[in-house]
């Protein structure tokens, strides 16, 4: 998902002090993840086992891992901060910004990924559009994944410094070494196992905060009333009512941007084409499991706002200064002696408010687990794309299988070392962080255009796919640079002088997707389409999808997707 990762730029007095019990809780977690890594080493001998977890994951494991790989600690803290800043609008990134795309992946796209037996998303592009598209996608994905991993690593280390007073180098080395051990030993299977474990820990450590917060606030109705009293004139508790105009909501966005930019382009781009998450589903043990996994994940994704968004809203009411006045959190750049805490400290502040010894350690472990699951996702995806899409086709073809497993292990270590290097680079030039995060989004939107046309339009050609992808990416970069050079351009890119930064990301993605699709269509019409026989297993209409036979309603993915859709609409209506 598009991240809003705030930075704790300045080291301040630490928020919390760990007791001996908290330290033991954290130590037990590290011991467990490393134990899992060593235990699973025996099951990572072939490339299929190391990179694809032997394609043996059940729907539940693949589904939880699918959600967990996205649920990084910075995702948690960034969006809790956004909820404090923008109110319940932030939940759009979890509901319309995820659920339709996850269901679409499971119901419509998964059969093509799975039937083609591709090892990666760039691998699908190779099959559909040829080598040039694969190389473009693989290089950009590998490069950006590692950079993002490093940026997140640094941000997490600074969080630990602010919250606990830990040394930055200690935090970076401790967490990255643990990830290196368990991913290098056990490959994707180990990453997935730990992601499921981390997912449970995140809930165990974070769910208590909104429960106690709601008790203190007197329930949801009282919470809304207190927010209304404390912040008159700003609508923090409705998701859609304020989206009629850019200026009528704290986020500065319009409903068209939320529906088409976020709900379609950014969301579908991330959840259906980003190999970081798709890799988890490709590891499923059957097509039925692969289709069920994102649907199972969608239920948990819908629940995440209760541990991320709700604490942000509760903080608007329950956080007070020592003198009893209401605490006001501010942006990173506005932190001062009068307002010492930023939006991004919402979750740690709430943890410290309610959690004593043991529970605080559990909450901190949840944050560390979130970080490690995100990092493991990055490096395991990088390792697979490097080995399958760059090393094997371009550096050493036809090597023994064991050789590629060794390359994968070294790629994992290399990925972590480069991530650490990036973390220190960002430490000395923090402006880089904004650029790296924006760069990552450059590739997602156009890649969605390329994949969708490739999967659903038989006429799309190899040249169309490549040039469309390139043009879409170039458009996204150009718009980003334009707004950076001239901030007034934001009103053109986002269609309104009242638009804010969040709207820019959404509309930039939308335009880059539109350009990618148009260029792909135009270039394809100038070329010759591949014969339909060559598109079997790759394109809708040229593929006979396997029928796995009748199943009871309780195991039918359409049935569970329908339930997810109903819950999705009910949630949006409740908080309309």
């Amino acid at each position: 998902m598009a991240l809003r990762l705030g930075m704790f730029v300045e080291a301040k007095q630490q928020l919390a002090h760990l007791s001996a019990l908290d330290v033991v809780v954290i130590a037990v977690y590290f011991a467990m993840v490393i134990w899992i890594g060593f235990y699973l080493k025996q099951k990572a001998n072939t490339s299929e086992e190391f990179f694809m977890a032997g394609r043996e994951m059940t729907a539940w494991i693949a589904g939880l891992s699918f959600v967990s790989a996205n649920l990084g600690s910075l995702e948690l803290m960034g969006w809790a901060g956004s909820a404090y800043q923008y109110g319940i609008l932030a939940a759009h990134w979890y509901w319309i910004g995820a659920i339709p795309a996850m269901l679409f992946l499971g119901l419509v796209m998964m059969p093509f990924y799975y039937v083609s037996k591709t090892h990666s998303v760039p691998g699908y592009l190779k099959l559909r559009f040829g080598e040039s598209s694969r190389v473009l996608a693989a290089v950009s994905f590998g490069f950006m994944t590692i950079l993002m991993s490093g940026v997140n690593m640094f941000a997490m280390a600074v969080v630990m410094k602010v919250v606990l007073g830990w040394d930055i180098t200690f935090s970076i080395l401790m967490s990255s070494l643990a990830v290196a051990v368990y991913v290098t030993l056990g490959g994707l299977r180990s990453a997935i196992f730990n992601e499921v474990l981390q997912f449970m820990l995140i809930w165990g450590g974070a769910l208590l905060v909104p429960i106690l917060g709601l008790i203190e606030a007197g329930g949801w109705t009282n919470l809304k009333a207190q927010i209304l009293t404390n912040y008159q004139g700003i609508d923090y508790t409705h998701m859609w009512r304020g989206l009629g105009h850019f200026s009528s909501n704290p986020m500065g966005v319009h409903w068209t941007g939320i529906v088409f930019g976020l709900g379609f382009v950014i969301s579908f781009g991330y959840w259906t084409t980003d190999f970081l998450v798709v890799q988890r589903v490709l590891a499923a043990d059957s097509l039925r499991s692969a289709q069920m996994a994102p649907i199972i994940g969608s239920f948990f994704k819908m629940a995440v706002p209760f541990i991320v968004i709700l604490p942000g809203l509760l903080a608007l009411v329950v956080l007070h200064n020592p003198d009893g006045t209401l605490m006001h959190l501010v942006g990173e750049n506005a932190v001062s002696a009068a307002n010492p805490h930023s939006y991004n400290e919402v979750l740690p502040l709430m943890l410290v408010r309610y959690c004593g010894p043991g529970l605080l350690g559990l909450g901190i472990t949840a944050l560390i687990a979130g970080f490690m699951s995100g990092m493991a996702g990055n490096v395991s995806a990088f390792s697979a794309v490097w080995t399958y899409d760059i090393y094997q086709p371009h550096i050493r073809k036809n090597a023994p299988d064991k050789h590629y497993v060794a390359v994968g292990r070294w790629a994992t270590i290399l990925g972590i070392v480069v991530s650490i290097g990036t973390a220190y680079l960002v430490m000395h030039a923090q402006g880089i962080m904004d650029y790296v995060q924006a760069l990552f989004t450059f590739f997602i939107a156009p890649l969605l255009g390329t994949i969708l046309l490739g999967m659903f339009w038989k006429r799309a050609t190899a040249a169309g796919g490549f040039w469309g992808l390139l043009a879409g990416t170039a458009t996204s970069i150009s718009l980003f640079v334009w707004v950076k050079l001239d901030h007034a351009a934001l009103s053109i890119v986002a269609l309104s002088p009242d638009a804010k930064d969040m709207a820019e990301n959404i509309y930039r993605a939308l335009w880059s997707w539109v350009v990618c699709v148009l260029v792909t269509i135009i270039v394809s019409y100038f070329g010759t389409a591949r014969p339909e026989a060559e598109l079997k297993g790759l394109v809708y209409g040229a593929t006979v999808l396997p029928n796995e036979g009748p199943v009871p309603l309780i195991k039918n993915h359409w049935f569970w997707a329908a339930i997810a859709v109903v819950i999705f609409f009910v949630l949006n209506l409740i908080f309309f």
Partner: protein
Amino acid sequence: MHGSGISIWFFIGVLLAIYGFMICGYGIYEMITGQVAHVALAYLHAPVWWGGIMLALGAFYCLRFRPAKG
């Protein structure tokens, strides 16, 4: 997971049970000694019931997915 070996749910059960035991145990110690941590809503004794829930859930997973069952 298919096949032989330890299920991921067993690992989760072990971790939850350990955490539940430690946190619930500390919560009971707090109640007995009266040395309650200085946190909001401390009178609710969250460590006792939250730790208890984790311990019960962990114990269930440990038993349900213990390696001997395959």
